């Protein structure tokens, strides 16, 4: 039998192009439905899990979906905000603690998430190296950011300008990486976390600059009006927070009015959660509170419907592919009639002839099945990330 299989292998080698094409086609139509099903299922589980862990989100009035996606995945196309004072307003209800989120800015493809230390405890994120953010201008990066950008503690990241011509507003801030998070298999892996006040500095609501009340700044002073020094626009503002210039950083006006993108409320109990929900739904029309699980479930419902249509389509293609494959095998067998005659005349047994004929079909089907299986495994591992990026974009 070993020699018979050897002869079969030679046939396969000789007709490898034909068989590869056939294998590819069968692999594709058998893998795709499984891949889609797997990706969608796992994505749904992950999305829902994230939403389950963040049952409530508060933001400015607008699209609940945008608010949910922004606060869960730091991916939002709107720039609507609410004032920071909402944090203390929420906490004063006595129903929940409040975690602020600010995710307007980016470092290349990664969101810069302004928040408070409570976020890390809430998400059970732990540090792989380094320490938490302590002061303005420091950042803790997710494991994915560290891996992709090749960053570690001691390195720096620079925020991306929002537009080329944004000369008078948001400007790049150089931030020092003080910590790297352990992988969490969540969107937190691909985020850069800073204190909420650092986000305001990036936005230009706070800054640090040279001291004006000394003789070195005389060139920048236009006039003195009593206790007020009026300086010109050439005053050098710092684009990096260091221990030396930290004390020069300050904010304009009352920081209670500064913007945040969303709030994650952490109710003290289930009863508090219900009371909180009722309070915001009935008494506040200037903010919105959403049940993120419901929003994500609705989004996934649409995805599942699309998935079903795609799978039906692929199923039809698979049937057609199956018929084509059958035809190819049939034609191949007919073409090999002379070969079967030769083998029989030489003295090959029926079994030997059948094995040689069948090996082609069996090999194609087996290899297709194996490839399909391997691809499905790979899809299970990497496909979710791809799908989430697709969904969120």
């Amino acid at each position, binding site marked *: 039998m070993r*020699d*018979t299989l*050897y*002869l079969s292998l*030679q*046939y396969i*080698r*000789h*007709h490898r192009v034909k068989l590869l094409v056939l294998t590819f086609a069968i692999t594709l139509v058998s893998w795709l439905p499984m891949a889609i099903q797997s990706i969608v299922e796992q994505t749904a589980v992950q999305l829902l899990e994230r939403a389950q862990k963040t049952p409530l989100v508060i933001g400015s009035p607008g699209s609940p979906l945008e608010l949910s996606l922004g606060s869960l995945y730091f991916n939002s196309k709107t720039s609507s905000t609410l004032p920071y004072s909402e944090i203390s307003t929420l906490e004063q209800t006595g129903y929940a603690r409040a975690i602020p989120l600010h995710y307007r800015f980016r470092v290349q493809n990664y969101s810069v998430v302004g928040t408070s230390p409570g976020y890390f405890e809430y998400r059970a994120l732990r540090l792989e190296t380094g320490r938490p953010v302590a002061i303005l201008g420091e950042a803790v990066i997710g494991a994915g950011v560290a891996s992709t950008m090749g960053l570690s503690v001691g390195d720096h990241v620079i925020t991306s300008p929002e537009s080329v011509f944004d000369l008078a507003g948001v400007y790049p801030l150089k931030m020092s990486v003080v910590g790297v998070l352990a992988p969490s298999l969540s969107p937190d892996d691909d985020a850069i976390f800073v204190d909420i006040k650092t986000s305001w500095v990036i936005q230009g609501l706070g800054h640090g600059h040279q001291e004006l009340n000394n003789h070195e700044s005389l060139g920048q002073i236009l006039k003195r009006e009593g206790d007020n020094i009026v300086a010109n626009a050439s005053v050098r503002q710092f684009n990096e927070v260091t221990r030396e210039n930290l004390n020069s950083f300050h904010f304009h006006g009352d920081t209670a009015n500064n913007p945040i993108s969303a709030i994650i409320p952490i109710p003290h109990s289930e009863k508090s959660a219900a009371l909180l929900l009722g309070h915001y739904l009935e008494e506040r029309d200037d903010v919105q509170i959403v049940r993120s699980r419901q929003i994500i479930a609705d989004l996934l419902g649409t995805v599942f419907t699309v998935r079903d249509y795609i799978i039906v389509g692929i199923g039809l293609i698979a049937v057609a592919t199956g018929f084509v494959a059958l035809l190819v095998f049939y034609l191949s067998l007919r073409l090999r009639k*002379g*070969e079967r*005659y*030769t*083998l*029989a*005349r*030489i*003295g*090959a*047994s029926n079994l*030997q002839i059948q094995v040689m004929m069948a090996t082609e079909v069996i090999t194609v089907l087996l290899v297709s099945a194996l490839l399909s299986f391997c691809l499905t495994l790979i899809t299970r591992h990497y496909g979710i990330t791809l799908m989430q990026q697709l969904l969120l974009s």
Partner: protein
Amino acid sequence: MALELENIGFGYASDGFKLSLLKLHIQAGESVALVGPSGSGKTTLLNLISGILEPEQGSISIAGQELTSLGARQRRRQRLKGMGMIFQSFELLDYLDVRDNILLQARLAPGVTVTADLEQRALSIASELGLEDKWHRPITALSQGERQRVAACRALLLDPSLVLADEPTGNLDPENKQAVLDHLIALCARDGRILLVVTHDHSLLPSFDRVIEMADLLSSEGPER
């Protein structure tokens, strides 16, 4: 190691053809040409000797081994290990190279392993037939004459006592047909094999030890349809 046929009777049910043979005796080392008009039963005779067909009556024996008493499976094994077959259309597999085509019969034969010795023997036979530099070439790259030599190598590899050839030079040009036949006859004579060749080409007949007319073998009834 003689080939003996006696009182063979065979008929095709599909077209009513009947063959009746009285006697045939070929000695070891003898090259015999079998001639006769088309439809006289030459190929049928070869198929009966090789065991592809089973006679309804009579006996066929090679070196004292009675083939007609064997079952189909045993006849097939006998054909694999004890006979070499050469065909007009070469009957080579185009997805195998020269080496693997020569070794084909050995790979199909039960109890035979393609060892280094066997491969060396195959190469040696191929060299005798001028194919040593074509060892790993695909069959499709060979000329007609070269392909028939490959078929001959395949037939001779397992040291058969009997080589049956059905119009082996039928598809060869005049230059090649004599050369191929001469090689085949020489190799069989040297190794004491029986060579039985069915041919229509009378120009080749002088090369054989003996020429048998099909009509001389048939019974007074002759072949019938």
